[in-house]
């Protein structure tokens, strides 16, 4: 059974505040799913490669070139935050 303390620790890593009810119920709910997925241990996975993506997909690359956007796009981007001249102003993080 996953402990309440461990859920609290993970919730903090994930930057999620849990209210009292969630703190009470979450261990049991997560545990029921963890119990259900235990059956994956029965499978022999020796020499099996993980399928992170499908084989025909190739990585796509391009030159990293700065693009100039039109005035309208610029206006929309500015509308997303507080602006100062031609820059977006964001909350300080340090």
């Amino acid at each position: 059974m996953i402990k309440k303390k461990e859920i609290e620790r993970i919730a903090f890593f994930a930057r999620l505040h849990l209210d009292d009810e969630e703190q009470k119920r979450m261990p049991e709910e997560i545990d029921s799913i963890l119990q259900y997925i235990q059956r994956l241990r029965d499978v022999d996975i020796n020499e099996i490669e993980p399928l992170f993506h499908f084989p025909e997909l190739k990585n796509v690359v391009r030159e990293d070139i700065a693009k100039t956007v039109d005035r309208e796009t610029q206006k929309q981007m500015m509308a997303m935050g507080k602006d100062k001249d031609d820059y977006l102003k964001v909350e300080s993080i340090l």
Partner: protein
Amino acid sequence: MKTTIKGVQEKIKKGETSHEEVFSSYLARIKERNETTNAFLTVFEKSKTVNEEKKELPLYGAFFAVKDNILIKEERCTAGSKILEHYVAPYTATVVEKILENGGVVVGKTNLDEFAMGSSTENSTFGPSRNPIDTERVPGGSSGGSAAAIADGMCNAGLGSDTGGSIRQPAAFCGVVGFKPTYGTVSRSGVMSMSSSFDQVGPFTNCVEDAETVFNVISGKDERDSVTSDLIKKETQENFRVGILKEYFVDGINQEVKRVLQEAIKKIEKAGLDVVEVSLPHTEYALPAYEIIMASEVSTNMARYDGIRYGLEFDRPAAKTMQDAYLKNRGEGFGKEVKRRIILGTYALSAGYYDAYYIRAQKIRTLIAEDFKSVFKKVDVVFAPTTPTLPFKIGEKVEDPLSMHLSDIFTVTANLAGLPAISLPCGKSGDFSVGAQVLADRFYEDKLFLAAKKFEKIWKS
């Protein structure tokens, strides 16, 4: 009034109705019914109807309900979440652009489980959607709003996203057609990411042919979604072999669902189609593997919603540090199911557990894809149930996450293996339709549509 896209096109051509008239009849239906079904979150009453010059375009006469995790420029896009309640999209998703370019009209944006996480459309901050066939029951999810809208005659087409069954399961519950294309055939640019190695956009329609028409419009390579390709097969083939997935007809499936499906199989056998039983030995591991990979990808994709970007007001005075602000914004902005999945995913990806959960699940994903690979050496398409049950009651499963997740047990395999899969009605149990699922190999949409159209004809006659 349930009409196909093709049906509307023909009626307009014959002069029996006009494009404007069809649009106003859908708007009237929404006005009459939306309070009950809660299918639409936003209705575009002022959408421009398409003029006659465009009547040769493939989607002329198609009126779409678009899931509210797909962006339309300058319109609100909520994902059913409080954290995006006031978010306005800065650009339009490629799929919507393509629909509009091809004569389609968007009628409105539809309700969903928050960020597409759920199987009932109950996990929406805007309240549950209801199944139009029985409003005490769920329409399925997570694209339940789009499914309910088309099933209730509020439109004749819809768009949804399918990560583990979110198009096919609600299509089955509402008695319409729902199609999840091959992974990498339809652009996700402008579609909110949930689980990026599974997510795919697809249509809801009233017949298989319409689903094919919409797919032909929305598919294709898009430089804004780097997993898209032009590998779709275009072969013409008359005959096909059908495999019945043995493991999908065992315990846990509702007896009524089983009865209707078995009758449907009998009908296709009677029609002279070549039907054999096939086996996918790792079927029982599909849902547990999906749970881990999906939750892991969810936990990373949801990291961008910090309450600072994308709209939600930052409550600076109440939060002393950035840490507090994140905890508070995300704690209050996300609903229960999203939080559960973020926690499960963060746990599965954390040091010490990564190999035991995430890597193991990805290896089992390989085994599941290989199971299908060997089946498609024997048959062209496979037949399976879409859901293990008929639509359940609102409130019945929402407090029991595992039992809710089990609704997706027959649909997640297509996402794990990246296959195209369609759900279409194959018979009735009381007022409800039962959904049959048809799957094909990756990029063999041509075979899938050929078979599904044939089945549809047999089951309807």
